[in-house]
């Protein structure tokens, strides 16, 4: 049923730190690697070695130049499903293929019910859903639902593949419905924001804006050396004469 379920209060999601993301694409490839064999497998590639490469990815990293009166900076910006609290992608689905889980708020697609009408991708303002033209169904981020509850993995590995891969710890996973959780605390501390809040989708994932930047470079140079004694000889005499 594509009506939204009444929620249990648990809201699993990601917190992405735009201050520390270096745009290395490790989360992108880790996501593709896990998920092309995971819940929504395959993540089809079309013409992967040709001139018109195309394919399904759940996570894409953009780079932007953000210019304010304080100056410009490069911001790397990972974009994936935000597992919204009021996801129109779910309610527009005519078949019941799209659904939001009551237990943890993850938005998923039942591939066997999807007719590939693409309306959900029109309804998502964030471009989180990508159509697999080879299989004829829509695909999207599962928040690695097949990792986070997977008893076969070591406990520290029960996080989404993108979070596990991030070398700068710019990606955090947890329960954003619990104000005491580490991710909620991080969002509160750093002033995490919603994307396109004016559209009212109420995304679960939060983005931490880059920290305020300063124009003062850190002082790392040693102080200039003072001469230990006056120069002697002819050049010393010239120096003294010219300095007078």
């Amino acid at each position, binding site marked *: 049923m594509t*009506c939204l379920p009444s929620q249990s209060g648990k809201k699993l999601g990601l917190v992405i730190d735009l201050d520390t993301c270096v745009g290395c694409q490790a989360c992108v490839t880790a996501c593709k690697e896990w998920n092309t064999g995971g819940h929504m497998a395959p993540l089809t590639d079309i013409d992967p070695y040709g001139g018109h490469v195309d394919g399904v990815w759940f996570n894409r990293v953009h780079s*932007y130049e953000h210019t304010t009166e304080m100056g410009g900076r490069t911001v790397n910006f990972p974009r994936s499903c935000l597992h919204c609290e009021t996801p129109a992608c779910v309610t527009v689905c005519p078949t019941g293929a799209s659904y939001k889980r009551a237990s943890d708020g993850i938005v998923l697609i039942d591939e066997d019910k999807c007719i*590939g009408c693409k309306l959900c991708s029109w309804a998502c303002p964030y*471009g989180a859903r990508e159509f*697999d033209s080879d299989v004829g169904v829509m695909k999207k981020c599962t928040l690695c639902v097949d990792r986070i509850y997977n008893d076969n993995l070591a406990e520290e590995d029960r996080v989404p593949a993108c979070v596990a891969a991030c070398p700068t710890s710019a990606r955090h996973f947890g329960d954003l419905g619990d104000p005491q959780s580490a991710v909620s605390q991080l969002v509160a501390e750093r002033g995490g924001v919603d994307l396109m809040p*004016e559209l009212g989708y109420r995304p679960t994932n939060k983005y931490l804006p880059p920290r305020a930047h300063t124009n003062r470079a850190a002082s790392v140079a040693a102080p200039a050396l003072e001469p230990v004694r006056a120069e002697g000889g002819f050049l010393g005499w010239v120096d003294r004469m010219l300095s007078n």
Partner: protein
Amino acid sequence: MHPAFSVVFFTTATGAGYGLLALLGVLGGFQIIPPDFWLGFIGMGLAFGLIMAGLLSSTGHLGRPERAWRAFSQWRSSWLSREGVASVTTFIPAGLFGIGWVFFGRSGGWVTVAGLLTACGAVITVCTTGMIYASLKPIAQWHSRFTLPGYLIFSAMTGSVLLNALLQGFALGSKVQLAACLLLTLFGWGWKVATWRYNDRLEIATTANTATGLAGGTVRSLEWPHTEENYLLKEMGFRIARKHSARLRQITQLLAFVLPLGLLAIVSALSWPLAALLSILAAAIQFAGMLVERWLFFAEAKHTVTLYYGR
């Protein structure tokens, strides 16, 4: 938004088909159009033909058309599902009305009831089609108060001009019917021009700043995540040059409104068969014009995901 021909043709054809069906249901049911086998057969055939062609065309848009039956299940939340349910449900009274009015040559009693129910079903179906687009918040040009009335007006307009062609073909044309066509076409023209003006002045609250959460200043796309166009850009990143858009708006106005108005004005001074010929021509030209209008409806619509790509 990418103007897929299957969807452009679908909404145009079903709009005209349901418009004609609703008018036949009401006018036939109340005996304003007297039962006549060939008129009824061709009229209902034309309406059903347009609707069926449109619905078949829409399944061409699906990745897995063999599962299309599942789309009838989520009418509680989905306008697309409601459209499916409404379009198929309308066939029940429409079929009964067709049998009574065309084959039994009856009107009044249960045939009138079936005709009125057909008209209700047709109007509801067109509303659901309009709401599919009007409910999509990421596309500001569609998520406006112009979209739903537009679908209804254009359905009534094309349906009425088709009905006029049909009646003129059987030498049953009337000044009232012609006047209705002229008024609806004028109204449609005004509505389309008002819609374009509204869209051209639209100030969209969603920007690259709110899309990325980076407050203040400017956000410029430095590098895409991929080198080639992906699904998002192919489906939702469609762009149309301003000069092409202006030219196509002129073509839309000429074909969908100006030429039909001129032809129908001339028809009022003519008698059968010339009146019939020009009426059919007006309907055909208007249909072609509405295909251009619907193509532009998609091509000029901008989805918020394009903000991530600096478009």
